[in-house]
């Protein structure tokens, strides 16, 4: 994993998080919108109740006949859209074909009956007579008028059939229509909210994948670093060995030339931290394990100043200065 690739990954993660934040703000805004519309809708409903009086029965018990939902959500490209369904064109969805046709017939018959009931209650038939009279009076635009009225009649018929507002009463007050508009608007907002939710979830998953990738890499990097560190620690030191006449060492002990001791080079001395540590030294002629008792100020990193006895174990005294490799034990 190169530096560049790592940087790219971090940028991707940041981008995903940013777009997620934007979506969340949009979501909050939409939700506020929704609450506002609902508030208006409720208010209009209260107004309708007051003005409608006893003729208007505004509760869900009016909805006890088989009905099809007109407003539905359809999923296109992972976004929701509100679709309006014409109930006269659809049949109730069932798996069995024969069953569905029977149900459809029943349902249509039922709706038709209900319609007729309503029309009668409305005085719809009387209305039509009224309209007929009016039509006779006006002779000239008679044909046009009749056509218009026929259109209106068809429209009203369709509305009676499909518009659920008529379920609550036959002459809905304008505030009820207003409430209906409010709730219709709310349904649109709900569609947008659901779409945003889906997108948010998608983004979150993308982010999670990227984040996991990054963490995986970080873990790998840490592991490698730890391994390297370990290798370095376990590694042997290389340097030169000399010998000296021990006396009072920097660690505070008296030593003799016969002890298997050594003075540690100044760079590795760490202020007496290595006092008492044992080192296994490999020289050209042998190996010896020594204890650190002193500091060697003039020695370079990796060098050890051994006692004469220790030195003789790994090399000839006459050599004076030999190459060694050693490690802590």
């Amino acid at each position, binding site marked *: 994993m190169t530096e560049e690739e790592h940087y790219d990954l971090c940028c991707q993660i940041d981008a995903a*998080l940013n777009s997620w934040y934007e979506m*969340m703000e949009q*979501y909050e805004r939409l939700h506020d919108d*929704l*609450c506002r519309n*609902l*508030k208006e*809708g*409720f208010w209009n*409903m209260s107004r309708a109740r007051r003005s409608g009086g006893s003729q208007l029965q*505004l*509760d*869900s018990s009016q*909805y*006890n006949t*088989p*009905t*099809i*939902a*007109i*407003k*539905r*959500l*359809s*999923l*296109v490209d*992972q976004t*929701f859209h509100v*679709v*309006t*369904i014409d109930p006269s064109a*659809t049949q*109730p*969805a069932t798996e069995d074909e024969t069953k569905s046709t029977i*149900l459809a017939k029943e*349902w249509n018959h039922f709706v038709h009956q209900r319609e007729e009931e309503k029309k009668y209650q409305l005085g719809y038939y009387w209305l039509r007579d009224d309209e007929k009279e009016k039509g006779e009076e006006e002779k000239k635009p008679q044909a046009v008028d009749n056509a218009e009225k026929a259109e209106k009649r068809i429209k009203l018929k369709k509305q009676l059939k*499909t*518009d*659920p*507002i008529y*379920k*609550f009463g036959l002459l809905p007050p304008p505030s009820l229509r207003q*409430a*209906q508009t409010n*709730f*219709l608007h*709310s*349904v649109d907002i*709900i569609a947008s909210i*659901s779409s945003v*939710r*889906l997108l*948010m*979830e*998608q983004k*979150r*998953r*993308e982010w*999670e*994948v990227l984040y996991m990738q990054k963490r995986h890499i970080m873990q790998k990097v840490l592991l490698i670093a730890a391994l390297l560190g370990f290798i370095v620690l376990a590694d042997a030191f290389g340097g030169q060995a000399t010998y000296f006449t021990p006396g009072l060492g920097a660690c505070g002990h008296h030593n003799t030339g016969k002890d298997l001791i050594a003075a540690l080079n100044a760079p590795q001395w760490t202020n007496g931290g290595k006092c008492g540590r044992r080192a296994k030294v490999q020289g050209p002629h042998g190996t010896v394990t020594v204890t650190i008792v002193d500091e060697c100020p003039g020695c370079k990193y990796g060098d050890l100043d051994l006692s004469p006895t220790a030195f003789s174990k790994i090399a000839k005294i006459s050599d004076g200065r030999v190459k060694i490799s050693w490690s802590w034990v």
Partner: protein
Amino acid sequence: MAGKLKIKNREGGFLIGVIGDEDTVTGFLLPGVGQVDSKRNKNYFVVSSKTPITEIENAFRAMTTRDDLAVILITQHIAEEIRHLIKDYDKLIPTILEIPSKDHPYDKEKDTVMQKVLRMRGTQ
């Protein structure tokens, strides 16, 4: 790409479920969101002050197992009563949307989904 969501569109579109008090449900029935099939199965559930919580829970569970709903609208004060069910809910379709009712305004702090979503802000 791993982790990409794919939700299939349903023939005939998804319905919107409503769990709320009388006014909320009626309000959503006005534009034509309500459906009652021949077996009297409704996609809405009216909760009054006398409805026991078990009934609400059953209605909620029934709605969430339906595959023809895309959203379930719940008024917030009813959501409070079945908070334990909503907290454990993690399906994507149908999603749960908390709405205010006539008597109870909307409180952002109590919305489970918002909380879950806001928790992501903390885990950067």
